[in-house]
């Protein structure tokens, strides 16, 4: 199968997960919101822990099963900077690629459309700056 088709199938599966969470729990599958609330509201978060367990366990299982490649693209210092930006930014902006990008656009939310356009463009600009400065990874 062509690699782009495999990616499309991967996307469809993510969609199925979003549908399961919506039809089953009545919730949007925003990973940043799920993770943040699991940290701050542990008592009401049984389903959040279950989802994260599936996500983390599934990552281990499927990366091994499919022999997925994982490439290192940034140094520890930049990984820490990036982690802080992603954690802070997704909570401040109320969502990430899944919450705004997949679920929000699926719900035709204007907030999510704006957020998705912004983080896509800024992500592209950031990679352009990295490529210009280093000719490669950060």
């Amino acid at each position, binding site marked *: 199968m062509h690699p782009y088709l495999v990616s499309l*199938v991967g996307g469809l599966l*993510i969609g199925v997960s979003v549908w399961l969470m919506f039809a*089953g729990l009545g919730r949007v599958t925003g990973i940043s919101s799920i*993770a943040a609330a699991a940290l701050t509201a542990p008592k009401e978060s049984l389903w959040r822990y*279950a989802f994260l367990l599936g996500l983390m366990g599934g990552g281990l*299982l499927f990366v091994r099963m499919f022999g997925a490649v994982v490439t290192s693209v940034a140094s520890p210092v930049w990984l820490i900077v990036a982690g802080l930006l992603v954690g802070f930014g997704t909570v*401040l902006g109320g969502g990430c690629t899944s919450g705004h990008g997949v679920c929000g656009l699926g719900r035709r939310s204007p907030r999510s459309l704006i957020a998705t356009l912004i983080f896509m463009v800024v992500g592209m600009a950031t990679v352009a700056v990295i490529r210009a400065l280093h000719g490669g990874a950060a």
Partner: protein
Amino acid sequence: MSATTSDVRAAIIALGAGLVFAAGLTLGGMMDPSKVQGFLDIGALFGWGGGKWDPSLAFVMGGALLVSLFAFGAAKSHQAPWASARFELPTRRDIDAKLVVGAILFGAGWGIAGYCPGPALASLFTGGADILWFLGAMLPGMLIAQKWFS
């Protein structure tokens, strides 16, 4: 914490959804930060930087969005979710400064590391030391934002 039958049913569905999500991320190639950067490397489309543009992420987003549009579009036919009393969807529709600034900061971090929260958490056991640095900063970043802004 006493879990009701409905809580347990919800947790089982969520566990399954997490597994399916991880399968989708892995098949989509999103567990590899260099593929994510390869998509964001828009300059490569114009021959800048010597890299090759990687459209994988567009196919992943497209596939996910296709199902998502259908799932949320069909919402009106439901009375209640299978394992919950009611739907709890975001209701805000205004564009405020927090949304814009948050998306800018997130986009910058996403570009630097090639990780957004889903693939990052799914990579906990496979991403080596890199993912520990990233998650070790992402989770405190979330807590700081929660503390300051809620």
